[in-house]
């Protein structure tokens, strides 16, 4: 009964609903069958290998592409029929787009701010996204990361209720990425919902409330980042170096599933208190490695397991 209530509650606050979305290009199936819901105020992530259909999915939602079939509901609107009304309430940072070479940073912000009737202060965005110094520079003269920051600022300039960010931090330096994460969190604090397409595991893990892993046009798993890890990658790795040739006695520990040795580097996989057991057993055999350490499972392990691909950042 309690579960039932939760479901109803969730459905009521869903700001985006997608059911059985499908989109093909000729014989290429870009989006096969995708369904999900996003609760208002969430940061929802889409993670998946190249060509999985992430961009196609979010661009259908933004009324930039026409799906072949399926149901979409965003802010109570259908992107297929209410595109203008929808676009005014959302912000878009597209994976591929550009501005005129000779437009200046401030001109772009001023122009894009003019589509909403409210007076919006885009000066704040210039400061926040570190573009204040560049306000009079032309688009062509910006570096890749600066362009990317301008595109994020443009996605926020109309004070949107939902923000779509397609590979937002690609091309940003580590400091700029951290700043971007903080700013995205602050957008959420303000009440906006964020749809984040990303290739960065740490970004997805740190930022997203819920996460869908997309592969070949389908969602293969969807949960909180921690939920995904617990569900799909419960095994820890214990790593150390040792010149000791024969370590087969480690197999006597029941919790250990796999031992990989490459040169002196030993990697032990298992679940439960593997670190303590391995440590005890090593000491018992007179081995005291100085670099014995444990690696907790990460989202990357989940990703590899579910998609069978290394994303290779």
């Amino acid at each position, binding site marked *: 009964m309690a579960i039932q209530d939760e479901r109803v509650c969730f459905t009521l606050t869903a700001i985006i609903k997608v059911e059985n979305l499908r989109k093909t290009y000729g014989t290429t199936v870009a989006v096969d069958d995708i369904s999900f819901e996003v609760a208002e105020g969430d940061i929802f992530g889409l993670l998946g290998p190249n060509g999985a259909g992430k961009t196609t999915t979010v661009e259908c939602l*933004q009324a*930039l592409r026409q799906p072949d079939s399926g149901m979409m509901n965003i802010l109570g609107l259908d992107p297929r029929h209410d595109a203008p009304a929808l676009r*005014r309430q959302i912000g*878009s940072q597209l994976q*591929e*787009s550009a501005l005129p070479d*000779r437009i200046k940073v401030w001109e772009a912000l001023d122009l894009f701010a*003019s*589509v909403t009737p409210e007076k919006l202060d885009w000066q704040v965005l210039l400061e926040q996204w570190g573009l204040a110094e560049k306000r009079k520079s*032309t688009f062509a003269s910006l570096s890749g990361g600066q362009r990317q920051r301008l595109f994020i600022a443009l996605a926020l300039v109309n004070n949107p209720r939902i923000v779509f960010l397609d590979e937002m931090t690609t091309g940003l330096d580590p400091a700029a990425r951290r700043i971007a994460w903080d700013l995205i969190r602050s957008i959420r604090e303000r009440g906006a919902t964020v749809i984040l397409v990303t290739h960065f595991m740490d970004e997805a893990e740190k930022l997203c409330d819920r996460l869908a892993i997309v592969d070949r046009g389908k969602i293969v798993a969807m949960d909180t980042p921690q939920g995904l890890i617990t569900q799909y990658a419960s095994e820890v790795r214990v790593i150390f170096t040792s010149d000791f040739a024969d370590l087969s006695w480690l197999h006597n520990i029941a919790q250990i599933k796999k031992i990989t040795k490459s040169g002196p580097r030993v990697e032990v996989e298992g679940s439960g208190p593997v670190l303590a057991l391995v440590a005890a057993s090593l000491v018992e055999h007179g081995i005291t490695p100085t670099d014995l350490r444990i690696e907790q499972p990460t989202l990357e392990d989940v990703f590899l397991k579910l998609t069978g691909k290394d994303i290779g950042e």
Partner: protein
Amino acid sequence: MRTLVKLSWVELKLFVREPITVIFTLALPIIFLFVMGGVFGNEASTDDGGMVVFRGVGPLDYYIPAYFALVMMAIGTVALPVHLAGYRERGILRRLRASSISVWSVLGSQLAVSFVIAIIGSILILICGIIAYSPNMPQEVGLLILAFLLGLISFTAFGFFLGAVLPSTRAAQGLGLILFFVMMILGGAGPPPEVLTGAMDIIGQITPLRHVIIILQDPYLGFGWNQNASLIVAGITVVAIALAARYFRWE
């Protein structure tokens, strides 16, 4: 509306920042004007000798209104199509669309900029002509303004059409320049149209430029309003707008 005004202003600034386009649309017609002035002077041909050329008026009286049309054609065949095709090719149109900037704002701003450029270009031609050759002044200013509006809208619509169907900047540049020079030579902005014979004359007759030149020249020279030519220009406009609307793509 606010977006249309903002976008028009930005587009005008972008135009000014693009030296190649400025030279092509504003400077080139003036250079041609001086070349024609240097070659032909401004003496009207008389019908006692050979053939009557330049419609019987002074060459510069002929070329000044003709080069108003040349500015419009530079916009319609080259500047606009290259601009629009480039915007589409590079994803700028997509970006504008995603921010709910309508097709009316995009095309409306281009029309506004075209107006400003054509007016500036024509005034520059008139001033240069006056300074160098003391030609006749425009005779029927009201009708001339009307013809100017019609011609400009026509070539802008033509530019929208080319910009809608041409897939890339390269294609737009290539085809646009060919159209520009063919129409210029055969349409009445190069050699006097009377010297063109046979196929050249027939091709000249079907170029939009020939008719835009006539609707501008007639009020300028005091010949009144040219009904036939203005109907042809209006027809071209309607067809170009219909085709542009039919084939316009954001990406």
